[in-house]
């Protein structure tokens, strides 16, 4: 079948190799599942913004099908519209036929990388970022420290004042997240005992960017878990999850990292593999698909994926301990796409928030819409990303909440940037951090040894 396709393709488009063949290509059977009903359209942020069929999930699946069947060359127009996809997977929520759109678009992106002509500099940059920087804690922390230095000294005002950056970079520079103090980047302790009776034992997954920029969130999660009778183990040899790589078409890098993580964390020995970063969470759940063809790792990946769990899901399952927050606040909850649409985690973060007395959750319009961060989308498709952010910030403003809660570092960075740009006094925070503050204020942590 695959060879027939390839032959047919070569006849029509001799200058192209069909990128969608082989076991890693978009699954033709799953493409077939799309019945072209168009229900996904209104759920899709890019279709809503642009109004083009090619920028809708249905249109993109159509493009994938035609390239797969050899009816269309994978030319620049095809790439443009597939590149514009946020991979937010809102269409999967809307789809009545259960089309696994996320795995289709990621397989398509991996395939397109084979025929894409990228400038050498970009290819080198991608390789450095995906294969070298993200999986390396030391280098990543160094980058974090450098960012911190840049942001807290005269450097930033000098660079900005003198206009030292080229145009595109100057545009992206303000989007850089505010790096935390170096102390926040320190390694997590190998093991933290439960406070009181130990009821559960979990492995903690830190995440790469999360550990550098949001180490405090990880520590808050670990403390909150301990307060709920959970012993938390941090297997030190774990690495980056591979999500950014997979979304950007480098699934091979993601597979390498997946194997490393499966080796590092003996998932079977724990009640769960818990994490406080939803983008990575979705990736860990997908290890089973990513390594489905791997003779050695397939079954281990499946077992690993089953154990992976967002911290809010774990806490809500075991019955989260209540506490009162010291500062009564209204909060608006923004659903990270991969938590809401990919993992279908919808109620649990709100259940955790409702365990915090004094915190009142107010409605946020389109709270399940992408904020435009979407991995590295804000860097590669800045214009669309900024339009989505604008829409999001409008709704945040209308909600009148001074705090936005969300469980993904990408969303936190993006929304915090949106607030800075608009001069809004807004706190953007992971739900578990509010829970941690409540426990702290109530004295739950007294006499405990915690990170």
């Amino acid at each position: 079948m695959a060879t027939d396709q390839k032959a047919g393709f070569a006849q029509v488009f001799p200058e192209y190799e069909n990128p969608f063949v082989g076991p890693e290509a978009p699954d033709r059977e799953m493409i077939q599942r799309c019945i072209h009903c168009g229900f996904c359209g209104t759920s899709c942020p890019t279709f809503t913004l642009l109004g083009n069929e090619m920028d809708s999930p249905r249109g993109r699946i159509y493009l994938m099908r035609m390239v797969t069947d050899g009816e269309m060359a994978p030319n620049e127009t095809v790439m443009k519209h597939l590149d514009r996809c946020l991979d937010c997977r809102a269409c999967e929520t809307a789809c009545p036929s259960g089309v696994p759109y996320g795995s289709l678009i990621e397989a398509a992106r991996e395939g397109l990388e084979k025929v894409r002509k990228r400038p050498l500099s970009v290819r080198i940059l991608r390789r450095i970022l995906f294969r070298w920087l993200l999986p390396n804690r030391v280098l990543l922390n160094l980058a974090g420290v450098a960012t911190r230095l840049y942001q807290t000294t005269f450097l930033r005002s000098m660079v900005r004042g003198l206009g030292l950056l080229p145009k595109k970079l100057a545009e992206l520079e303000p989007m850089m997240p505010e790096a935390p103090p170096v102390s926040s980047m320190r390694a997590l302790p190998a093991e933290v005992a439960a406070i009181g009776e130990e009821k559960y034992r979990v492995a903690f997954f830190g995440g790469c960017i999360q550990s550098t920029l949001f180490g405090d969130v990880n520590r808050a999660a670990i403390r909150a878990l301990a307060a709920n009778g959970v012993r938390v183990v941090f297997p030190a040899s774990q690495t980056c999850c591979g999500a950014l790589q997979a979304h950007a078409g480098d699934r091979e890098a993601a597979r390498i990292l997946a194997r490393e993580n499966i080796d590092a964390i003996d998932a079977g020995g724990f009640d769960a593999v818990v994490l406080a970063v939803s983008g990575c969470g979705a990736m860990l759940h997908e290890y089973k698909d990513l390594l489905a063809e791997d003779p050695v790792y397939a079954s281990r990946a499946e077992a690993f994926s089953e154990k992976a769990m967002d911290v809010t899901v774990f806490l809500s399952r075991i019955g989260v301990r209540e506490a009162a927050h010291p500062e009564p606040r209204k909060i608006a909850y923004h659903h990270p796409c991969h938590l809401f649409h990919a993992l279908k985690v919808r109620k649990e973060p709100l259940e955790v928030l409702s365990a915090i007395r004094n915190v009142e959750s107010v409605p946020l319009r389109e709270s399940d819409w992408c904020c435009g961060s979407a991995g590295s989308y804000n860097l590669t498709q800045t214009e669309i990303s900024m339009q989505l952010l604008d829409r999001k910030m409008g709704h945040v403003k209308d909600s009148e909440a001074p705090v936005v809660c969300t469980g993904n570092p990408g969303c936190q960075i993006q929304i915090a940037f949106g607030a800075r740009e608009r001069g809004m006094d807004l706190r953007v925070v992971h739900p578990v951090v509010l829970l941690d503050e409540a426990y702290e204020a109530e004295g739950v942590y007294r006499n405990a040894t915690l990170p």
Partner: protein
Amino acid sequence: MDSAEFIQKLTDAVGEEFIHTDPVALRTYDCDGLTIYKGIPSAVVLPETTEEVSRIVGICREYRVPLIARGAGTGLSGGATPLPGGVLIVFTRMNKILELDYVNRLARVQPGVVNLHLSRETLPHGFHYAPDPSSQAACTIGGNTAENAGGAHCLKYGMTTNHILEMTVVLPTGEVVHLGADGEDSPGLDLRGFFVGSEGTFAVITELIVRLTPNPESVRTMLACFAQVGDACRTVSDVIAAGAVPAAMELMDRYTIEAVETVVQAGYPKDAEAVLLIELDGLPSSIKPLETLIRDISEKNNCSSFRIAQTEEEREGLWMGRKKAFGAFGVIAPTYYCLDGTVPRSKLAQVLEEFDEISARYNLRITNVFHAGDGSLHPNVLFDDRVPGETERAIECGSEVLRACIRAGGVLSGEHGIGIEKIREMKDQFDEPTLEIMERVRDAIDQDGLMNPGKLIPDEENVFPVALGGAVARMGGGMTK
């Protein structure tokens, strides 16, 4: 014709960003929700105002290029499928709600407004837009008007035409006219009624004033299960004969239950041959006696169980099964073809038996999920398009199903429209003089024959060939209205 000049003029009319002529882009517009017929347009334009639409229509007329309007492209009869080489006018940018007037209970909207988005805006104010096609989360009010769409709650509240008060349209000449009025009645010929459901063969809609309906005071949703489909059908006609008008009354057969339960677990019993999903709305005091009446009638017709949703969540679950039914067919068959013939309620049981006979003869499974209350059927022919000859067999099977509806005193289409899909059977439905008067009316309005040619009224010149093999995966896919 100088096509470069033509495209340049269109570009000048809408702006470079809002015209597509790239072959890749054009391919994605080659069909709507019905994928069996395809046509690649010569250009796709996305206008923003009535004036732009008028200019586009004028240019198409000047160069004698057919034009086709498209909302969300969710239609199931091929209404928005372009005649090859035609210009497709897409309304995704004309999606603004222009005015909400709760005192006079009306809304002024652009045609690209998504059906459900209007209700979402008005619900907190105590109103909604009543016609609710199953595709309401995606389909547009302009498309609904062109097709005179129905929906589950149209049993009580009426079809789209009952909710369109005034429409602004661009005539084939490029002239802009307003039909109807924003009140209950308008003097002169009822051209509004005439244009609703004309499937884009008269004019292009660019603005609408629609009726807003007060939200019901309360709602009760129930599920009656039966061991015989005939018993369920008799329950439907008995309920209506007893004088009750539920807000909705939906029937799903065994195959549908199987598919739905596999995908969404709506809580329908898997051993039932048919379930009726019934919704009542109104004042609680008026609902109670109706509820008793319906329960009694169901029991008289041997219903095996009767359940009333106790919570909003349970109610949503029951509806979820119905709304996702069509998508769920993907689980029990590779391909299906959804029809929408309508028969008198009293003939439901008889017609369903006839479908069984047709199904056996063609050796293709036919499933049923439909608006039973108004006899609006949705028989679905399940087949595998990868088996040579099976697509053609499914089309023939579908055609026979439609003719069975007509023989029972019914009509070809309850709500999806004729489009390309049922154009062949128009000759079974109407006699020569009736078809001729329709044709004469159309020709009087569209003198050059440029408005959505090949749709609705049989037309020997513009016949869409069936697109077989290759990229064609499914036909009549998606949810029904």
